[in-house]
């Protein structure tokens, strides 16, 4: 039968493109680390590693949620605005109790996700448009809550969250690692994870198989919103200030880049959790390397843009059915 011949033929016709798509992010990350070990003074110092980890953690956390959303054939542009909302919640409630502040920040994340998810799942609005609303409005609401000002935060618990370390590893990095493992388990081992991939891969098929398509989509956006809110809390506690104008600004771009560079196609139907973490680390390292070697911030952004285009280029075959 011809049925057995086809698979081998397909595998042999792909080759290099597939390899770069699957492993490219790890290769690039490894190469960049080696380059820095040789060319950048003090790169391997504890202080520098800790700094890099603290800076990358919020991006990793946001990107994990973004990976689930993109896997479901969606996108969430409102993560930065959600971080700002969370930051404003912290400043509003921190006087009562730090735990209440964190709780209310996460509630803001749930509400944001519920709003986005409902627009996408029940009203059938395209994800990019549905989340654009909160992208625009969210930061405005956050500014209204804080009267548009930076609010300094003096709270020992929150301060500890931002500054303490566990065995030398910053708490925020520990949280990011735990979440990455949790999301990986969700994707690989749970029916919820399989449903996300089925919906992203072929929504009509998912409907036909009787999967709870709408609840799953809403849940995915809620998870993304909560993770963004958590990232907002971590950023706020690290800087000991709530600044809705700047918290999470442009993070949606970093998160989407991390997801795509990590091998998750924008067309959905696949989620690469480890790739997403590697993607976030890669972008962080690219940026800090360029800055350390005296390139301007704007030059660094151009390099970032080039990497995104390259990553999407290597994924273009994926979307073809």
């Amino acid at each position, binding site marked *: *039968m*011809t*049925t*057995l011949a*086809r*698979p*081998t033929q*397909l595998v042999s016709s792909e080759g290099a493109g597939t390899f770069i798509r699957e492993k490219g992010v790890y290769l690039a990350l490894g190469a960049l680390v080696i380059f820095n070990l040789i060319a950048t003074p003090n790169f391997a110092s504890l202080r520098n590693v800790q700094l890099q980890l603290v800076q990358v953690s919020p991006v990793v956390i946001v990107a994990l949620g973004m990976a689930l959303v993109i896997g479901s054939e969606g996108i969430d542009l409102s993560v930065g605005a959600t971080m700002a909302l969370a930051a404003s919640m912290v400043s509003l409630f921190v006087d009562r109790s730090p735990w209440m502040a964190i709780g209310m920040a996460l509630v803001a994340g749930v509400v944001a996700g519920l709003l986005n998810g409902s627009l996408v799942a029940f009203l059938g609005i395209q994800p990019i448009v549905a989340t654009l609303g909160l992208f625009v409005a969210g930061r405005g609401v956050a500014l209204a809550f804080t009267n548009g000002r930076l609010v300094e935060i003096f709270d020992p618990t929150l301060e500890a969250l931002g500054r303490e370390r566990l065995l030398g590893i910053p708490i925020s990095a520990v949280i990011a690692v735990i979440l990455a493992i949790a999301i990986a388990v969700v994707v690989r*081992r*749970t*029916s*919820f994870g*399989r*449903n996300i*991939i*089925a919906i*992203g*891969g*072929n929504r*009509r*098929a*998912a*409907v*036909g*198989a*009787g*999967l*709870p398509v709408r609840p799953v989509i809403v849940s995915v956006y809620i998870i993304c919103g909560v993770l963004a809110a958590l990232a907002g809390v971590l950023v706020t506690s690290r800087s000991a200030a709530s600044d809705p104008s700047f918290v999470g600004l442009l993070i949606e771009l970093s998160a989407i880049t991390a997801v795509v560079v990590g091998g998750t*196609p924008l067309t*959905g*139907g*696949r989620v690469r959790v480890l790739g997403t973490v590697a993607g976030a680390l890669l972008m962080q390292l690219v940026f800090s390397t360029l800055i350390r070697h005296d390139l301007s911030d704007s030059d660094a952004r151009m390099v970032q843009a080039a990497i995104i285009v390259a990553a999407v280029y290597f994924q273009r075959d*994926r979307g073809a*059915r």
Partner: protein
Amino acid sequence: MVTLVSRNTQPALQAVGLTKRFPGVTALDSVSIDFHAGEVHAVVGENGAGKSTLIKLINGVYRADEGTLILDGSPVEFAGPREAWEAGISTTFQEINLQPFLSVAQNLHLGREPTRRFGFVDVRRMNTDATELLARYGISIDVRKPLGSVGVAIQQMIAIVRAVSTDAKVVILDEPTSSLEPNEVEQLFRVIRILRDDNVALLYVSHTMDEIFEICDQVSVLRDGSLVHTGPVSDITRLQLVATMLGREAREVRTSGKTAFNIEGRSPGSEPILSASGLTRFRLLSDVSLDVSAGEVVGLAGLLGSGRTETVESIFGLIDLDSGTVTMNGSSVKAGSPTTSVQRGIGLLPEDRNADGIVPTMSVRDNITLAANRSVAKWGFVSRAKVNNLVNHYVERLQIKLTDVNQSVAELSGGNQQKVLLARLLCFEPEVVLLDEPTRGIDVGAKAEIQGLIDELALDGLAVILISSELEDVVEGSNRVLVLRDGAVVGALVGDQISEESVMDIIADVKVDSAVST
């Protein structure tokens, strides 16, 4: 007859030996048809017969691999649709391709608006011209209104008028009535008759027998890419036409053994397990009722667009019904929810395997167990052992040929993908399966295997509703056959009544005593 007057002149458009190949398939194989001015020429055929390929060759979307088009006696070759249009070949598509927010008059003049000095559009002249033009075809509406605000039928006619107002010699009407109501169809026919009298050659694609016999002068039948009949409509009966489309000799005696089906030994239960009654959906279904018992295969027969797919989709909950109920084991199934249907034990094998079935980014394994979350997962966590058991069981039972269960499902052949989808259905242990074209687009061997499997399912006590465009599947595989036409059940056949001949009689609306027994 009107037609005879123009017959001695040369054809307005001649297709000579048109052949079009796509990778792996010859979509159109050496087709020659003459289209005369002043005639409505029907082009009919089932899905995949080559109608749309023929149209696209004529209107310049495709280039023929072999053969020529002769327009008014001279060979033509079009680089694209625009050239065909400029040469006088206009197409109105199923979906109306006009601008809903522009006015009726603007739509009629799109791309060639009358202008005054400095290039300003002469709105007044445009509106008077449009009003006059439409009046010729018996349409009187306010041409200043946005197109989107007038009815679909009017929009359709405006599309046609726009087509002919560019001095079209040939007008292609691709299923022009598919979105029209009966009285609107009459209006459209009036326009078509005016065009015919104006010596336009009309090419009319439709699935509806009534329309062909009412409005068309000539009919050409395509099947599997070849022209199998061409001639005056008055020389062919409805039954002959249906038989030609389906590739059967009219009055062909039932011959058994074309398929692998064997309905001997089936013992359908006496009580229906699933009953649908009065399924009605505007323009799609009217008052369709059917029931199916455990161990029984009920076949749905009918031409394309007769409502077969819509019937099973509405039972499954993919189509919202205007009215009608579905009950399963005596209790009603919540309408409009595939999730509930699956929970109640109803499974659907979709007609379009790629668009509605396969998840191309997932492995064979995950595709098979897609709908089986409840049996393989506990507290939301999927058990690998249970998944492997299930997958191995069905890969073996359905003889799915693969190199590894973790390979991408997109790498499998059509027949094996179809088996994967069947396995997905069986995984959640349904009581009723709705199979929409289970044997379409797969090779002969896989076809026989799937037919044999459907037998097994019935023997195991599943209730099966079977749709197939292959008449022999329905005839030889079913215990009962319901025939649909225009969204309604028009006949029911049981046991010995079932034959290709009797099914075709009902489809073609030939009154035979034994056939009409609903």
